[in-house]
């Protein structure tokens, strides 16, 4: 028995005895996934094989040259390892030119191209003897990858490839996340062909828990293909690359466009991953000209309308800069370019794409406080609109406060540096000054008055026990109440603020003062310590907007 294996139907099994070959029985497998499984399951049969014999035509009705298909699967199936490099004798009466001619202009897949590559030999059945005894070299891996496979030029024959592109994208993301999906890789020739070009990529670093986010994370994935690898990979990424192992991670999923449009609980999520195309038709249709027409864009607008602070990362198969810019303009907070087999990207690009994605998630989680900031802002704006409408407050005052909040939010939303955060804070702080100017007037050279509510009392901050309490006798420095003294008077005398709430206002004012007038004595300036340094983060801004929300809520109750 020599080390030749012949792939043949059972009805022709005498062949193996005549030629003293091993038989590998072909049972009319005709679909890619069946051929793939059949080859993998019988891999051990080939351990000592030196060459393969495959009739070009196998099976009952063989217009498609099934033998060549099987040959293509052998060359392209990574799991077959050394078997891929074996010389293959294809058997036919026809010449390779005749076989290929038969496929040209008829089929997208031209399996006949395999006959023109190294390691493939087309022989007639009558000349097999000669080839069975002749030493034939195995293919070299480099030759297979760099010469043979690229010549095969396998095209996508599947219906326009939403599913295929999604499978490809999920496997690519998983690969760069160092994760093995619990899904079988697609076994179509096209997928395998494209996958062969990614052979030499370096798998990314091992998990590193340093610098992971030390808070829980609640994420949502909106994708009609969520279950084909995406949610699994995202969970892995959130658990191992983003969030500290001690903290909880959850990922909910919405798969239908209509459900996404109607969903009411977006506010509960720290980050939303949103696919740009949520309907299969969007891949087929040539009608989509504008980014606004995509289902994902429509959902993006709905979510940002609910609360602009909800963090959204878009999954898009488009790498068109103008599309991505438009999505960012519409409020998207990051994007990940879903890779597609239609355009193989360089490994460098794939890595950058992945790393940027990780950074985007991290940034989104750091921006979690924006949701609360926008919720409070929306509440304040609504109260002011109602009060103005009912003529309870001055229209210009109300409008000005709304404009400052809007401007401050824009600055804080776009903030990247410490000074950006402080700048947003200062603009928002203008609202405190507007309130003071609107409600405090100088009654006489020594008396200050809260509009229609009597004289302004004095509040002092007691550093020893960190409290703010009203003081007697009243003695404003230079008979000029400070910003804090004014707002403290309004809020405690008129709006019923507790001392604790007034203390918050004190710190809000101090934060602004220490930034504008830094104390240059000592090693640490006051702006760098304690409550004051919060001006450089979302925390300070959140505290200020909470105070403003309390002021306007109490004002609304008083004026109701």
């Amino acid at each position, binding site marked *: 028995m020599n080390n030749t294996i012949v792939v*043949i139907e059972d*009805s*022709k099994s*005498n*062949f193996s005895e*005549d030629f003293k070959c091993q038989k590998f029985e072909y049972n009319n497998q*005709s*679909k*890619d996934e069946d*051929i793939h499984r059949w080859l993998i399951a019988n891999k051990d049969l080939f351990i000592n094989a030196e060459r393969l014999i495959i*009739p*070009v*035509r196998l*099976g*009952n*009705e*063989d*217009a*498609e040259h*099934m033998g060549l*298909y099987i040959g293509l699967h052998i060359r392209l199936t990574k799991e077959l390892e050394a078997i891929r490099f074996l010389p293959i004798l294809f*058997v*036919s*009466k*026809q010449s390779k030119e*005749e076989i290929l001619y*038969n496929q040209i*202009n*008829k*089929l*997208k897949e031209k399996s006949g191209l395999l006959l023109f590559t190294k390691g493939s030999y087309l022989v*007639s*059945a*009558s000349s*097999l003897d000669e080839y069975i005894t002749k030493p034939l070299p195995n293919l070299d891996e480099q030759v297979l990858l760099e010469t043979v496979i690229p010549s095969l030029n396998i095209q996508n*024959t*599947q*219906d*326009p490839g939403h599913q295929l592109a999604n499978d490809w994208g999920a496997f690519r993301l998983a690969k760069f996340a160092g994760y093995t999906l619990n899904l079988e890789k697609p076994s179509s020739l096209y997928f395998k062909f494209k996958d062969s070009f990614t052979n030499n990529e370096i798998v990314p670093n091992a998990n590193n828990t340093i610098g992971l986010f030390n808070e829980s994370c609640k994420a949502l994935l909106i994708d009609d293909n969520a279950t084909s690898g995406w949610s699994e990979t995202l969970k892995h990424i959130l658990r191992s690359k983003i969030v500290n192992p001690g903290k909880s991670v959850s990922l909910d999923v919405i798969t239908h466009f209509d459900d996404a449009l109607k969903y009411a609980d977006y506010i509960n999520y720290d980050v939303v991953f949103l696919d740009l195309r949520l309907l299969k038709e969007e891949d*087929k*249709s*040539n009608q989509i000209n504008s980014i606004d027409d995509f289902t994902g864009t429509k959902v993006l607008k709905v979510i940002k309308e609910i609360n602009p602070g909800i963090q959204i990362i878009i999954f898009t198969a488009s790498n068109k800069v103008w599309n991505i810019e438009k999505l960012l303009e519409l409020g998207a907070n990051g994007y990940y370019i879903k890779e597609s087999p239609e355009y193989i990207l360089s490994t460098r690009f794939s890595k950058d794409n992945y790393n940027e994605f990780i950074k985007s998630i991290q940034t989104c989680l750091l921006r979690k406080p924006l949701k609360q900031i926008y919720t409070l802002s929306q509440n304040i704006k609504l109260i002011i609109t109602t009060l103005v409408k009912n003529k309870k407050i001055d229209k210009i005052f109300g409008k000005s406060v709304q404009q400052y909040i809007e401007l401050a939010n824009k600055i804080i939303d776009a903030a990247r540096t410490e000074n950006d955060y402080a700048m947003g804070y200062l603009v928002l702080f203008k609202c405190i000054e507007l309130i003071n100017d609107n409600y405090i007037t100088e009654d006489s050279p020594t008396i200050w008055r809260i509009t229609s509510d009597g004289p302004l009392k004095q509040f002092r901050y007691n550093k020893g026990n960190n409290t703010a309490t009203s003081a007697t006798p009243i003695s404003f420095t230079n008979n000029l109440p400070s910003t804090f003294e004014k707002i403290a008077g309004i809020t405690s005398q008129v709006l019923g603020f507790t001392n604790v709430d007034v203390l918050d206002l004190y710190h809000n004012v101090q934060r602004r003062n220490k930034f504008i007038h830094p104390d240059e004595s000592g090693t640490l300036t006051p702006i760098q310590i304690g409550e004051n340094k919060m001006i450089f983060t979302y925390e300070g801004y959140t505290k200020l907007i909470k105070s403003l929300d309390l002021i306007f809520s109490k004002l609304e109750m008083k004026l109701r």
Partner: protein
Amino acid sequence: MIYLIDDNKYGQMSENYKLDFTQVLLTYHGFINWFQTISENDIDNIISDAACILIHDSLEEKEDKERIVALAKKSKIPYCLFSNGFTATIFDGDSIKEIKKDRLYNNLLIFMNNFKSESRIDLRLLSLGKNYEVEKAAIIQDRLSNGVLFKGRNNFNFEVAFPSGSQDRKDLRELFYMSEDFSNKDVYEDAYNNFEDKYSDIKTTAKIMEDAISNLTNKINSRYE
């Protein structure tokens, strides 16, 4: 009427299959009817007057597809299931249970022409195009030659190489039938029996049998040259 049930769009037809589908529908108006989606009523209408049903295997309305195929089988209407997920062309009697989509669209005009001029459904045209016989002969020759050699190159025996009732025997018979223009079935039967008798002789070798198969193929090819 031939019914084509395919959820593809016009643009995709021309893009993927280089087929001006509007032209097909105009040229063969009254002979082909195209449905992108189907309803319950459509199914009854289709089954009532279909000469043949061509249906996309990956149609979204999977249950409707299965119902149409079941009804077509019951009513003995030839059907053809196409999809690009299919690799091979597999016949099921007079119907095709699997064919690649690009192969079907590549041969659709030939199939329609034949139906329009001959009022006859010939799904072989859909699978192998206008030179059906040449292509089929090449397939059979390849399969039989391999078989003859694989099964008895040193010790050929007709009955072993072509067991009675086997696909190979049927193929040989079809090849023989295609090689001559037999107008009378009895003449054909006699001629074929003589052919079998001749090669069942003990002196027949694999080489002789292979040459005989080649001769049959050459005869078919010569008619198309």
